[in-house]
C-alpha cells in the first residue's frame, strides 16, 4: 500500500536504476561484442562464427525491446526489433552470410537505444505504471485525509462507482449513482461539500449524456469548500473555466474520498490514477 512504502513511489529504486543502466550497456555490448568474437573466429576460418554475431544481435534486440516496454511512453520501433532480428538472423534467407548485416544491425540498435533514452523518457515508476499513488494526487489525498476518513464506506463506495463510471464515459450511469447521495441537515460541513461534489458530477454527467453545453446557471462549490478542493478557483475566473474546474475538483474530491474511506476500492482507483493526475494538473 502507498502509505507503508518507504521508497518514493515516484522514483526508481537504486537497484532498478542500476539494472537499467546495465541493460542499456548490454545492447551495444552484446551486438558489437558478438561481431568482434565472430571476427576473431573468422580469422581462424571458422564460418559458423556468423551465428555468434547473429546471436549477439538477437539478444541485444530483446534487451532493447524490454527497455522500450518498461517505459510509459512506448517506442514501437524499439519494441519490434526482436521481430526484425528473427526475420534477418533466424529465418532461412538467400543472403550470403557475412558480417555486414550484423554490423549495420548493431549500429541501428545503438541508434535506437540512444533515441529511446532521450526521446521516450525514463523507465516507468510504480506511480507512472499505476501500481502506487504518487505525485500531486497523493499530496492532495494526504491533505484531505484527516477530514474525509470519517465518511461512511457506503458513500465512499458510491464515490468510487461515480468516478470509475465517469472515467469510462458512462455518463448516464454516473448521473444515476450520484443522484442517490442526498443532503441531510445534520451532515458536517465537509460532508456537505462532498454532497455538493456529487451534485456537480451529476449535473455534468447529465449534460454530457444529453450532449448539452454549459447552462446559464450551474452548480459550483461554495467558498467554505476551498480547503477540500484540489485546485481552488482564482477570483476572476471566466464562466467556462469555472464550470470545467468545478467538475475537475468534484471528481478529484470523489477520488480522494474513495481512496481514504473505502480501502477495498483502491484496486479500481489505481488504474484510473492517470485520469485523476490529468485532472489535478490543470
Amino acid at each position: 500500500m502507498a502509505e507503508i512504502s518507504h521508497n518514493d513511489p515516484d522514483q526508481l529504486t537504486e537497484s532498478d536504476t542500476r539494472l537499467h543502466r546495465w541493460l542499456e550497456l548490454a545492447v551495444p555490448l552484446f551486438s558489437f561484442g558478438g561481431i568482434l568474437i565472430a571476427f576473431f573466429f573468422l580469422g581462424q576460418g571458422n564460418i559458423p562464427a556468423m551465428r555468434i554475431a547473429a546471436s549477439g544481435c538477437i539478444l541485444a534486440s530483446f534487451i532493447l525491446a524490454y527497455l522500450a516496454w518498461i517505459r510509459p511512453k512506448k517506442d514501437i520501433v524499439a519494441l519490434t526489433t526482436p521481430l526484425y532480428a528473427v526475420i534477418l538472423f533466424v529465418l532461412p534467407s538467400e543472403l550470403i552470410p557475412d558480417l555486414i548485416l550484423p554490423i549495420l544491425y548493431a549500429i541501428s540498435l545503438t541508434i535506437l537505444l540512444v533515441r529511446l533514452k532521450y526521446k521516450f523518457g525514463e523507465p516507468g515508476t510504480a506511480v507512472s505504471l499505476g501500481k502506487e499513488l504518487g505525485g500531486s494526487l497523493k499530496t492532495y489525498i494526504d491533505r484531505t485525509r484527516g477530514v474525509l476518513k470519517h465518511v461512511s464506506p457506503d458513500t465512499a463506495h458510491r464515490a468510487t462507482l461515480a468516478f470509475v463510471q465517469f472515467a469510462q464515459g458512462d455518463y448516464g450511469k454516473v448521473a444515476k449513482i450520484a443522484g442517490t447521495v442526498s443532503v441531510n441537515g445534520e451532515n458536517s460541513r465537509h460532508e456537505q461539500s462532498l454532497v455538493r461534489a456529487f451534485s456537480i458530477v451529476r449535473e455534468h454527467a447529465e449534460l454530457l449524456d444529453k450532449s448539452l453545453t454549459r447552462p446559464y446557471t450551474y452548480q459550483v462549490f461554495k467558498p467554505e469548500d476551498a480547503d477540500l478542493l484540489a485546485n481552488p478557483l482564482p477570483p476572476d475566473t471566466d464562466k467556462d473555466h469555472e464550470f470545467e474546474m468545478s467538475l475537475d475538483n468534484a471528481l478529484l474530491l470523489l477520488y480522494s474520498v474513495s481512496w481514504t474511506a473505502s480501502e477495498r476500492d483502491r484496486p479500481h482507483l489505481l488504474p484510473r490514477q492517470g485520469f485523476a493526475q490529468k485532472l489535478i494538473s490543470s
Partner: protein
Amino acid sequence: MKIGKVDVKVSIVAVAVFVFFTIFLLYASLYSPEVRSQLIWMIPALFMLLVIPMALNYMSRSQYDNLEPIYEAEAKPVRIKLINESMVGKPVRIQGVVERVYFQFLNRPQYLVADRSGEISVKMFTSTKEDIKVNDVVEVLGQVIRRYVVTGDPVINCISIRKIEKS
C-alpha cells in the same frame, strides 16, 4: 475524382509509383523487343498501380461515410482532458484547434488537436473529405483507441473531421 457520392483521392506516393514505372516501362520498351512483346499485360498492370489504391480509397471512404451518421448520433461531446484509457472503445466528439498535421500525403492523416483543457492525437485511416491545415478549428468524431492497439496512450480513431466556424 468523384465516384458516386464518394470523393476518391489517390495519395501522392501511389501517383509517384505509377509515374516511376511508366517511365521505366517506356524506356525498357524502347530498347527491348522482349519487353514490347509483353506490353499487352504490362500496361494493364501499370494502370492497376493506380486503380487498386483508388478502389481501396473508395471502399474505405464509403465505409467511413456510412459510419458518420452513427457517430453523429452516439458520440458525446467531451473536453480533451476527459479522454482517458478507461474510455477505449467509446465514441467521442471533440472540438479544437489543429496544432500539427502529419502524413496527409499518404492519405493516412494524423492530427494533433488541442482545446483549452489539453491535446490529443487524432488518427485517420483514410483520406479526409476536406483539406485540414494547421490552425483550423475542427470538430472530430471518432472512437477512443490505444496508440498501438493494445498499449500506448489514448488517441482518437477519427471517423470524421470537419472545419467549423471559429467562435
